[in-house]
């Protein structure tokens, strides 16, 4: 078949319910969310010809193909880096469609990371170095008691907070803003449960003096899937197409996903700055072209650092941007309007990509007015979605 460049678009999104105990296998969650995304697009599951997930997803491609009845899979890939690379699934799918190698790329992430294993507990079962997860230096943390995602995050975040005088109360405002969004999102675990800054400040320390309980995302059970095809084809499908204007990744020298203590200056985020630079160069766009942003928020400090990394404000200014209501629904840049990973569920960043799609379609429960472009970031990968 002759290959020519084709624009890529998101044609379908799907999810299971988000819970603490799904009561079924991760493969079943993967199959259910995939079927939902394909139904959303109006594409028969047998037509899937590309599949992308995380290196750390436990469901097997062939197992999922056997559930969906995929008749001829042309391409499979897995992205390293866990949640930080969530958006890398989108650029890989985009590239496959651009290159004419696939017509229907299914991206999925499904996990029982609350009921089956505890993502937030000490990772003492996986002590050895593992290739392909983007964070090979965790073994240098384990004997010293840094054994959880919250501790790994805090060790780096503290330098940023020191540099710019960011307090735990400043972080709390991120949690309050996102829980407000979650409170009006029926799909969110924290639907109907907003919090106050006082409640945030009286929640227990998870890692002193950086993260309180309400700074942390949820351990969640659930699955999210996204279907990418050509823009031309998407126009004839069930939903309004969401064009992927650009998508890319940046992993600068000496940066890794979470045991990320070895690059020059921990007060900044070279991977976010690198992704932003590449993404804006690729698309010719700038931060002020975005009407909303979905930003990876396993922990609150990540939102501030990425807002600065992507140029929505200058270094050190995110705390004031947030304090002045900048990320609220009527703010300069509404952020994580579904409640984020903190308020909706922690499906490793994939549910935030789905929210970016809903905002461009105009179907979000907390819909931002006049959305043309949404930026989606997972820290070391990013994408810009466009209304067609």
């Amino acid at each position, binding site marked *: 078949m002759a290959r020519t460049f084709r624009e890529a678009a998101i044609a379908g999104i799907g999810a299971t319910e988000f819970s603490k105990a799904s009561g079924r296998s991760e493969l079943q969650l993967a199959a259910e969310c995939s079927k939902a995304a394909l139904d959303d697009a109006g594409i028969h599951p047998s037509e899937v010809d590309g599949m992308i997930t995380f290196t750390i997803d436990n469901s097997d491609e062939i197992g999922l193909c056997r559930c969906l009845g995929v008749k001829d899979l042309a391409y499979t890939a897995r992205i390293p880096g866990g949640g930080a690379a969530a958006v890398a699934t989108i650029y890989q799918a985009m590239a496959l469609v651009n290159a004419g190698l696939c017509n229907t790329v299914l991206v999925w992430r499904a996990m029982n990371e609350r009921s089956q294993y505890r993502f*937030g*507990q*000490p990772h*003492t079962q996986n*002590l*050895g*170095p593992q290739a392909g997860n983007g964070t*090979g*230096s965790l*073994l*240098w*943390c*384990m*004997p*010293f*008691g*840094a*054994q*959880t995602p*919250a*501790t790994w995050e*805090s*060790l*780096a975040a*503290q*330098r940023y907070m*020191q540099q710019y005088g960011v307090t735990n109360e400043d972080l709390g405002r991120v949690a309050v803003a996102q829980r407000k969004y979650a409170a009006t999102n029926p799909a969110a675990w924290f639907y109907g449960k907003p919090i106050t800054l006082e409640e945030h400040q009286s929640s*227990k*320390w*998870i*890692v*002193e*003096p*950086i993260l309180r*309980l309400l700074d942390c995302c949820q351990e969640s059970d659930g699955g999210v899937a996204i279907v990418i095809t050509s823009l031309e084809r998407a126009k004839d499908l069930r939903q309004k197409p969401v064009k992927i204007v650009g998508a890319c990744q940046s992993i600068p*020298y000496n940066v890794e996903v979470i*045991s990320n*203590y*070895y690059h020059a200056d*921990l007060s900044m985020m070279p991977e976010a700055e690198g992704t932003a630079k590449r993404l804006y160069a690729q698309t010719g766009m700038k931060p002020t072209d975005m009407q909303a942003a979905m930003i990876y928020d396993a922990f609150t400090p990540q939102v501030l650092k990425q807002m600065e990394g992507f140029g929505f404000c200058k270094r050190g200014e995110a705390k004031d941007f947030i304090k002045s209501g900048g990320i609220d629904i009527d703010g300069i840049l509404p952020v994580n309007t579904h409640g984020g990973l903190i308020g909706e569920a922690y499906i490793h960043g994939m549910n935030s990509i789905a929210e970016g799609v809903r905002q461009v379609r105009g179907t979000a429960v907390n819909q931002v007015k006049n959305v043309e472009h949404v930026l989606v970031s997972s820290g070391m990968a990013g994408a810009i979605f466009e209304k067609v």
Partner: protein
Amino acid sequence: MTDPTESAPNPPPKPTRLAPIVTLDAKFFWDAADRGEFVGEACADCGKLRFPPRPMCPHCHSVKRNEVKLSGRGTVYTWIQPRHPAPFGFKEPPIVATIELEEGYRLVSNLYDIALEDVKAGMPVEVFFVPTMGNHQVPVFRPRAK
């Protein structure tokens, strides 16, 4: 040394700290730690230090390595105390810190002999060793005079 014939009513408690995870490329570091020595890895051709250890120099791509003795002095870069869940292997939550070594790179370790609220960025520290399960040792740090 204690006379082995003396009665020892209170033997020291067995270490509960996790033993280091030893990979082939970092074995020299942990072997030295077991001897109570704090060492680093330098390129045998261009002399540049690197951490974490790795089999090739990113500057000149030599695979020849030298083990070099480090001063054991550094400063505190970041520090935290894990509260919940309790880290495995500790009776009391440790202070976990990234230490900037005099030789110019960082590593993750623990701070001893100081309260969390007294730790300051840039505080000078020096290395010493504590035991782990399996009869190994890991380098940790405590304040030193400037």
